[in-house]
C-alpha cells in the first residue's frame, strides 16, 4: 500500500474512532452503572446530530465565527442529549430497575423505536448535514495530502479530552466518585448515604450528552438519514463488547482498533467495510469471551 493511502486511511480511521469512542463511552458508562445495554443510545446520537444541524442552520446567517459555530455543536449536544438521557432514566428505566436485564434491554429497544419515529416526524427523511463547518476550520498539508483540520485534529482531540476528562471526573470529583461507588455495589453505596437514584439520572444525562456529542460532531462530516442511529448503535455495541462491558480505557482501544480496521478496509477491501467491526468483535470474543479488557472480578466497572 502506498504511504499516502496509508496516511489517508489512518486519519480517516482515527477520526471515525474518535466519534465511535464518544458514543461507546456513554453506552459503556450506562452499562457499568445499570448493567443494561441502552439501545436508545442510538437515538440520542441521531438527535444530537439533527439538532446540531438545525442549530447550525439557524446560526449560519447570523455569524461567521468558527468558535461560535463549533461551540454550538457542544451546546446542542449537551442540552438535547443531557435532557433526553435524564428523561429516559426518570421516565422509563427507573420503573424497570429490578427486572431481568434482558427485559430492561427490550425496554430501551422500545424507547429506540419510539424515538426513531419522533425523529422522523421532526426532521423528516431528507438527508441533513453541515459540511461547510468542517471546511471553515481550514486544512493542513501532510506529506503532500491535504486534510481537513476538523478531521485531523479536532475530532480525535475532543475524544481524547473526553476520555481524560471522564477519567478525571470519576477519580477526583464527588459526583464521579459516587458513580464509581454505585458501579461497584449499588446496595453498599446506598447504605453509605449515596443517593443512587440521583447518580443514575446523572449518569444517564452524562451518557446522553456524550452520545449526542458524537452525533453533533459527525454532522459536519456525514449526512444524517433515518436509520443512521441504528447503524451507529450496533457498531458501538461491537466496540463495547470487544472492549469488555463497562471498560472505559478498553472502549478507547477498541474504538481505535475498529476504526482503523474499518478505514483500512475502505481502501483495500471495500466490500468488507461494514463488516469489519463485527469481524473484529467476533475474533476478539472467540479468544477472550468477555472482551479485551475484562476483569476477572465479579463486578465490572
Amino acid at each position, binding site marked *: 500500500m502506498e504511504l499516502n493511502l496509508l496516511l489517508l486511511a489512518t486519519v480517516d480511521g482515527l477520526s471515525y474512532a474518535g466519534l465511535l469512542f464518544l458514543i461507546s463511552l456513554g453506552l459503556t458508562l450506562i452499562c457499568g452503572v445499570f448493567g443494561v445495554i441502552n439501545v436508545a443510545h442510538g437515538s440520542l446520537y441521531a438527535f444530537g446530530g439533527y439538532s446540531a444541524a438545525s442549530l447550525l442552520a439557524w446560526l449560519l446567517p447570523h455569524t461567521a465565527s468558527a468558535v461560535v459555530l463549533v461551540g454550538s455543536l457542544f451546546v446542542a449536544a449537551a442540552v438535547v442529549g443531557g435532557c433526553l438521557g435524564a428523561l429516559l432514566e426518570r421516565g422509563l428505566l427507573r420503573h424497570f430497575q429490578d427486572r*431481568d436485564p*434482558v427485559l430492561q434491554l427490550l425496554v430501551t*429497544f*422500545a424507547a429506540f*423505536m419510539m424515538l*426513531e419515529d*419522533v425523529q422522523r416526524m421532526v426532521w423528516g427523511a431528507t438527508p441533513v448535514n453541515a459540511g461547510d463547518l468542517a471546511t471553515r476550520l481550514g486544512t493542513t498539508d501532510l506529506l503532500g495530502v491535504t486534510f481537513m483540520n476538523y478531521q485531523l485534529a479536532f475530532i480525535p482531540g475532543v475524544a481524547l479530552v473526553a476520555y481524560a476528562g471522564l477519567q478525571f471526573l470519576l477519580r477526583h470529583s464527588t459526583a464521579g466518585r459516587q458513580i464509581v461507588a454505585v458501579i461497584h455495589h449499588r446496595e453498599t453505596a446506598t447504605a453509605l448515604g449515596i443517593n443512587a437514584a440521583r447518580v443514575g439520572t446523572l449518569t444517564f444525562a452524562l451518557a446522553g450528552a456524550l452520545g449526542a456529542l458524537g452525533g453533533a460532531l459527525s454532522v459536519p462530516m456525514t449526512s444524517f438519514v433515518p436509520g443512521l442511529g441504528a447503524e451507529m448503535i450496533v457498531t458501538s455495541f461491537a466496540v463495547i463488547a470487544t472492549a469488555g*462491558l463497562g471498560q472505559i480505557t478498553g472502549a478507547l482501544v477498541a474504538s481505535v482498533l475498529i476504526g482503523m480496521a474499518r478505514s483500512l478496509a475502505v481502501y483495500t477491501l471495500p466490500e468488507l467495510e461494514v463488516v469489519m467491526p463485527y469481524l473484529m468483535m467476533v475474533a476478539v*470474543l472467540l479468544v477472550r*469471551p468477555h472482551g479485551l479488557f475484562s476483569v476477572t472480578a465479579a463486578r465490572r466497572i
Partner: protein
Amino acid sequence: MRRTTFIAAVAAAVVLMLGAGWALPWSRMPIITFLCFGLAALGLTVLMRAGQVSFGHAMYAAIGGYATAFTVRAFPGADGLVAVAAGVVASLAIGAVVAAFVSRYRGIFFGMLNLGLSMVLFSLAGKLYGWTGGTDGLRFERPALLGMALERGQFELAMLVLTLALAVAVAWAVQRYFVSSSGQVMLAIRTNETRLEYIGLSARMVLAEGYVLSAGLVGLAGALLALVQSLVTPESGYWIRSGEYVFIAILGGSGHAAGAFLGAAVFELIKLAAAAYFTNAWQILLGATLIAVIFFAPQGIVGWRRRAPRQTLPQEAR
C-alpha cells in the same frame, strides 16, 4: 386452560383463517405473514425459555430465504416444498456451526454475538451483488407446489394452507419438546446453570440443541416468506427484524408454544391498525405496546392468566 378448550380454540382459529383466506383474497398475505412471524418467534421462544435473547436470529430467516431462492434458481424444475426444505436444512446446518461456539456465552454477550454475526451476513448479502442481487434482493420464478403449477391467487391460497398446516404441526412438536426433559433442562438454564452442571448435565450441549432448533424454526419462516413473495432481500436478516421477532416472543410469552402465535397475531393487528390510522407513528405504537407488556405482563400473554408470585429477592448475585 383445559385441554379440550384449547384444542377447540386452535381448531376454531384454523377454520377461521382458512375461511378468511378462501373468501377474502386480500387476507391471504397478512395471514401467511402472521403465521411466519409466529414460527420465527417460536424459535426465539425456545431460547427465551433458557433466558437467552438473540438479537440476530433474523439471519436464519435470511439464510432460509436465500437457500430457497438459490434452489429454485439453480434447479428450475424443483418443487416449492423441496426449496423450503433446502432453506430449513441450510439454516439448521449454519445454526449448528454457530451454536458450537455461541453456546459458550450467556446474556448480553450471547445477544451481541448473534447480532454481530447477523450484521456480517446482512452486509455481505447487500454487497455481494453477483450472488445475492445486492440490496434489491433476489427474485425467482414461482415454482410448482406439490407438482401443481398455480396462478398467483391459487398459489397464495395453497401457501396459506401449507403454512397453516406446518405451523400447527411444528407448534405441537415444539410444545412436546418444551415438556420433554430437554425442554425442561432449558428452563433450568435460566433458573440456575451451576446446579444443572452439578447434576451432570451439560448446559452448553442443551443450549446448543435449542439453538439449532430455533435456527431451524426461523429458517422455516424465512423460507416460507421468501417462497410466497418469490423474493428474498437482505432486509429479512436486518437486526430490526430480529428485534421484531424478540418483541413477538416477549409479547406472547414463553410459557407455551401458542404464545408465539398469539404474540404474532397482536403484532400483526397493531401493524394493520397503525397502517390504517397512524401511518407515521406505527413504531411509536409498537414501542408503547412493548413497554406496557413488559410493565404489566412480563410473562407475556400466555403467562398473564397463571401469574407466578412476584419475586422480591434482591438480585445480589448478578
